[in-house]
C-alpha cells in the first residue's frame, strides 16, 4: 500500500525531511499560486512580494484555477488543476531564495538535475498532482480565497491566488531532500522496454530534424 501523509502548512523542515517518494500527501493551511506571469513581474519587473507571503505560506502551486469573480467581490472556485512545471525551471532558484518556499506543487515534476541543484540544496521538495488532473477533488479542498494579487494585470489564469486549503490533495511526492525523483525512477523502468518496441519496424523514408540535430544533414 502507498503511504499517506497529512501536512500542516507552513510545512516544517522536519515534516519535509520525512516525505518519501511515492507517498500520498494532503495539505492544510495556505497555498499560493504563481507561474511565469508572477515570476516575471517580481523577478524581472521589480514588483514587490505581497506582504506577509513568507510567513503565511511556503507552498507554491503551479496552477491556474477555474475561478469566477462574483458580484459581491468574492470568487467562486470550481476546479483546480496544475500546469506543467518544467517550463518554470529557470525562475526557481531565485524564487525559492526570495520567498523561502519549501514545497512546489505542479504537473509532471522537474528534472532530477533541477531537484539536485535547485530544490534539495534549498530544503525544498516537489509534489505532483495526480492524474492529471483531479480538478474537482482539489477544488473541494479549497476552503476559501484569502487574497488575490495582480488579477487585473495578469488575468485569472496567471494571477497569484492565496488559497486556504483543507484536506487538499491527493498529491504524490516526486522529490526528496536528496534530490531523488519518482518520475525519473519510473521513467528508467519504462525505458528498459522501449528499444524492443521498435524492433523490426523499418525506418521512414524521410527523416526530420530532431532525429538528427545537425542542420547540415540531408534528411533523405
Amino acid at each position, binding site marked *: *500500500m*502507498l503511504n499517506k501523509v497529512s501536512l500542516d502548512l507552513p510545512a516544517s523542515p522536519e515534516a519535509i525531511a520525512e516525505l518519501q517518494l*511515492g507517498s*500520498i500527501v494532503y495539505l492544510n493551511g495556505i497555498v499560493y499560486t504563481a507561474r511565469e506571469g508572477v515570476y516575471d513581474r517580481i523577478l524581472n519587473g521589480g514588483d514587490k512580494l505581497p506582504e506577509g507571503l513568507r510567513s503565511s505560506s511556503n507552498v507554491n502551486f503551479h*496552477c*491556474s*484555477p*477555474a*475561478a*469566477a469573480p462574483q458580484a459581491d467581490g468574492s470568487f*467562486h472556485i*470550481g*476546479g*483546480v*488543476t496544475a*500546469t*506543467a512545471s518544467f517550463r518554470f525551471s529557470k525562475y526557481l532558484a531565485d524564487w525559492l531564495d526570495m520567498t523561502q518556499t519549501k514545497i512546489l506543487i505542479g*504537473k*509532471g*515534476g522537474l528534472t532530477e538535475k533541477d531537484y539536485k541543484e535547485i530544490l534539495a540544496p534549498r530544503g525544498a521538495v516537489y509534489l*505532483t498532482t*495526480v*492524474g*492529471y*488532473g*483531479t*480538478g*474537482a*477533488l*482539489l*477544488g*473541494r479542498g479549497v476552503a476559501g480565497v484569502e487574497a488575490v494579487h495582480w488579477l487585473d494585470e495578469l*488575468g*485569472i*489564469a496567471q494571477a497569484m491566488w492565496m488559497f486556504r486549503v483543507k484536506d487538499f490533495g*491527493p498529491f*504524490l511526492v516526486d522529490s526528496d531532500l536528496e534530490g531523488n525523483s519518482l*518520475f525519473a525512477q*519510473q*521513467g528508467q*523502468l*519504462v525505458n*528498459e*522496454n*522501449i528499444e524492443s*518496441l*521498435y524492433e523490426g*519496424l*523499418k*525506418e*521512414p*523514408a*524521410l527523416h*526530420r530534424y530532431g532525429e538528427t540535430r545537425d542542420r547540415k544533414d540531408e534528411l533523405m
Partner: protein
Amino acid sequence: MITNKLIEDASYEIMRRAAIDIPEDYLNGIKSVAKNEKEQLSSFVIESMIENYEAATEDRRPMCADTGLPRYYVKVGDKAVFDGGFTGIERALRSATARATHDVPLRPNRVHPLWRTEHNNNVGINSPEVEWSFEPEADWIDITTVHKGGLFGTDYRMLFPGDGIDGIKRFLLDTLISFGKRGLCCQPAIVGIGLGGSKDTCMQLGKQAACLRVVGDRNPDPEIAKLELELMELGNSIGMGPMGFVGSSMAVDLHIEVGYTHTGGMPISVHTFCLSSRRATARIHANGEIEYRTDPKWFTPYHRRDTIGWEE
C-alpha cells in the same frame, strides 16, 4: 423554427455538461483499463481519477480546471429551418461560450498568441473554433462541444506510401512515448489518428477521431477497424501507464479516420484526448425540443461518403 436563443441555451448547457460529467463510454472504458492494470502507482492514479469524476458530478464543478480550448462541431440537417442565418448561429455559440466561462466556471484560457491579451471569456480571434458538417433529410441541428487541452499529445508527420504500416506504428510510438512521459498527454487517452487528406485535413481528422467517436466504436472499414485494435494494443504494450509510471494503461481506445490524399504521400497525425475526455452534444429538433447525449455521432455514412452524390 430553431431560434438563436434555443441554440444559445443548448450550447450553454453542453458547455456545462462537458466540463463536469465524464462521458459514460469513457468511464466504462477507463474502468476496464483499470481492471487490467497491475501496477500500484498506476492503479492509484486511475482510482483517484474515478473518485474525481464522482466529486465533479456531485459538486457540479469541472473535472479538470484546465477546461482546455472550448470549441464546437455543428451538424446542420438539410431541412433544418433556423433564424438569424449562419452568422446568427455563430453569434449564439460565442455568447454561450462567454457566459459558460463565467458561470461554470471554465478557465479563461484563450489569449492572443503574441500579446497575451484576453477577454477573460474564451472568445477572441478565431475562437471558439466552429466546424460545420451537414446531413441529408434531417430537420435538426446537432451541436457538440469539446473541451480539450492544447499543449501536449499531438503531432503530425508526412509519411510516404512505402513507409507503410511500419511508418504508422513508429510514429504512433514516437508520439505516445514523447508525450506519455510524466503523463503530459494525460493518458490513458482516447487516441485519434488522422491518415491522409492534406496537412490541415489530416490534423482535423485525427482530432475528430479522438474527440468525436466514443470508446468501443470501430471504423466501418473492417481492415481499418482491425488496425485500430492492433495499434491500441501496441500503445498499451509500451509499458507506460498514467503519469508515465510503469503500467499498461496508455490508450482507452484508438480511432482512425481517413481522407483521400496525394498519390505520393501518407500524412499522419496523432492526437490524445485526455483522462477527462470532455464532450457533450445537443440535438435541437424542429419543434424546439432539445435532447442531450455524449455521443457526437459526427461520422455519419454521409460524412464519410466516397461518391459524388448521395443516395442512402
